[in-house]
């Protein structure tokens, strides 16, 4: 039997109970809120500070009409700018080597098998699943040269959608997301020598609904524990040129930063730092206190000396931080900066740890992130989604070159951590040759593991 998601969802709401939505209560509530907003602008600063601050964001970003995005064309960022059209073409054998590829022809009806990351010693983490009612997943370590899989013992039961955090030569670490979005921070660890799984939970770590985590260069695991959930500003977001609400520059969640020792479940440390996003170089913690660009500072703490400095990264006035990673003396920040009459303003900004912008890759419907290594990578993967520009590109931090690697991108989300100098590239696989924008869906994906030549 074939079940269609769309049809099932429509059936689920086909026979609703009587609607008792009280429109008079809506009008009453709306009028009260409008009065409160208007009052907020003239009240004393001690009373309405929160409301005024949120309103100020809109005024500064939106111009004279606080509810309307004032600019109509995508603004140019400060400093040098690169665009997708500036990319050269990467050539296999000259710019990169293809180490392995794998084609999954039918991800749509069956998850099947696919590359899930690469270990520090160069083996592919090869994933099978999830499958079945129990959401079973199993992994193998695959030799890219021979394609031979060494299947690992089954992970502990009850794990939902584990995500690789670090793929070391000695241990593999996976984030185990609580199925219901709640519960303690939990890691699954496979000891590769003994081929045994263990589950790590630190009782001293505060519980939250969401966590962010990364290994620090000191070997500790740094955990962002959700501290504050953002809310829309009073009255909602401004409206973009397409009539849709546009929350560029909106506030996002913030986390309190803690750290734990992988080998000692009693070793839990409050880093006493409020972060929006955080990452590490080989020697420093780098973070922002918020995710929106309007009042943002980037902070850098040398983990050996404790010395700190911060700077204004000069993000655009309406930029939200979507990706944030660092390596050596470079920081790479992926941003969404609003939608204008001539398209989306998406950016990948590369700057030094002293705050100098090296370049900004700007485009309509592009994503980008520092894709390789653990604080020692140099490859920024740029994914262009617009049909006339579709494909994966690589910006090399070492050479400042932007090269196109592929001319299609998969609609499926795959991959995981890879060591410095390696990349996983996903191409669409479908009946018409594959394009995420084509009318014929890409049912599968072709994955490449490549090693970049620098």
């Amino acid at each position, binding site marked *: 039997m074939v079940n269609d998601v769309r049809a099932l969802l429509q059936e689920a709401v086909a026979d609703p109970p009587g609607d008792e939505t009280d429109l008079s209560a809506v009008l009453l509530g709306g009028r009260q809120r409008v009065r409160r907003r208007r009052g907020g602008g003239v009240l004393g600063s001690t009373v309405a500070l929160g409301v005024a601050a949120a309103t100020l964001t809109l005024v500064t970003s939106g111009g004279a009409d606080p509810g309307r995005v004032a600019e109509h064309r995508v603004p140019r960022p400060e400093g040098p700018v690169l665009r997708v059209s500036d990319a050269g073409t990467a050539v296999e054998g000259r710019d990169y080597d293809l180490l392995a590829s794998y084609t999954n022809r039918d991800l749509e009806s069956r998850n099947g098998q696919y590359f899930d990351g690469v270990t520090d010693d160069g083996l592919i983490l090869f994933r099978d699943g999830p499958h079945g009612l129990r959401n079973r997943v199993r992994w193998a370590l695959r030799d890219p040269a021979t394609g031979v899989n060494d299947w690992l013992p089954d992970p502990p039961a009850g794990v939902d959608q584990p995500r690789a955090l670090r793929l070391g030569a000695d241990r593999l670490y996976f984030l185990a997301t609580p199925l219901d979005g709640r519960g303690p921070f939990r890691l699954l660890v496979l000891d590769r020598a003994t081929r045994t799984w263990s589950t790590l939970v630190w009782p001293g770590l505060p519980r939250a609904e969401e966590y962010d985590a990364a290994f620090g260069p000191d070997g500790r695991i740094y955990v962002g524990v959700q501290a504050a959930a953002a809310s829309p500003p009073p009255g909602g977001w401004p409206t973009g040129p397409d009539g*849709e609400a546009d929350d560029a520059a909106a506030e996002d969640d913030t986390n309190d930063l803690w750290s734990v020792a992988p080998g000692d479940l009693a070793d839990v440390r409050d880093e006493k730092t409020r972060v929006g996003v955080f990452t590490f170089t080989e020697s420093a913690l780098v973070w922002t206190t918020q995710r929106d660009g309007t009042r943002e500072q980037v902070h850098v703490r040398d983990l050996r000396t404790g010395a700190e400095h911060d700077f204004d990264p000069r993000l655009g006035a309406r930029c939200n931080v979507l990706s944030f990673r660092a390596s050596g003396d470079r920081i790479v920040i992926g941003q969404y900066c609003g939608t204008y009459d001539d398209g989306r303003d998406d950016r990948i900004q590369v700057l030094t740890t002293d705050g100098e912008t090296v370049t900004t890759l700007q485009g309509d419907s592009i994503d980008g992130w520092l894709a390789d290594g653990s604080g020692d990578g140099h490859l920024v993967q740029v994914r262009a989604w617009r049909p006339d520009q579709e494909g994966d590109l690589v910006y090399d931090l070492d050479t400042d070159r932007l090269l196109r690697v592929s001319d299609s991108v998969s609609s499926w989300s795959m991959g995981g951590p890879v060591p410095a100098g390696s990349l996983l590239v996903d191409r669409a696989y479908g009946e018409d040759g594959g394009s995420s924008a084509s009318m014929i869906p890409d049912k599968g994906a072709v994955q490449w593991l490549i090693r970049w030549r620098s």
Partner: protein
Amino acid sequence: MPERRDEDAFVAFAQGARGRLRSTAYLLCGDWDRAADHVQEALIRVYVAWPRLTKAGREYGYARKALVSVVLDHARRRSSTEVVADVDASIGAGYSVDSGYDLAEQVTARAALLAVLADLPPRQRACVVLRYFEDLSVADAARALGCSEGTVKSQTARALDRLRSVFEDSPLGELTVGGGTSW
């Protein structure tokens, strides 16, 4: 406050849109009563923004985004001690993700889908509802959720992973997303 004629237009809009919004809210939260509360709050936000919305058109897009925000805000703020029935008991009757193969054969695919939806993290659930109930493009879903298109794709893929895995190898049969989009 909007002029009287604006209120009339707003009421007309609200009367026309609330049914669809309520269905979307129900799929997002799994409870008709809570869905009505969410729609009410979303419509209040629409009221506040109404003067500028009517200049730009596409009022429903704003209302939908406000609704998604209300539901996600509510999910985030739920106390860890609060006992929440994420899906109508009647809908999930006989079906439990944890109980796995104790499924009775009479369990319908619809009930199974709703039960699994209820167990998804809120943003993954929202991606499924926006893409396959509201039939939004990836770009429009990204706008509604306030995230990148890549995030919508990855969240949707994770959600579909979960949904498919439950249907796979079960008496329910295969789950497809048909309709001409890849996911």
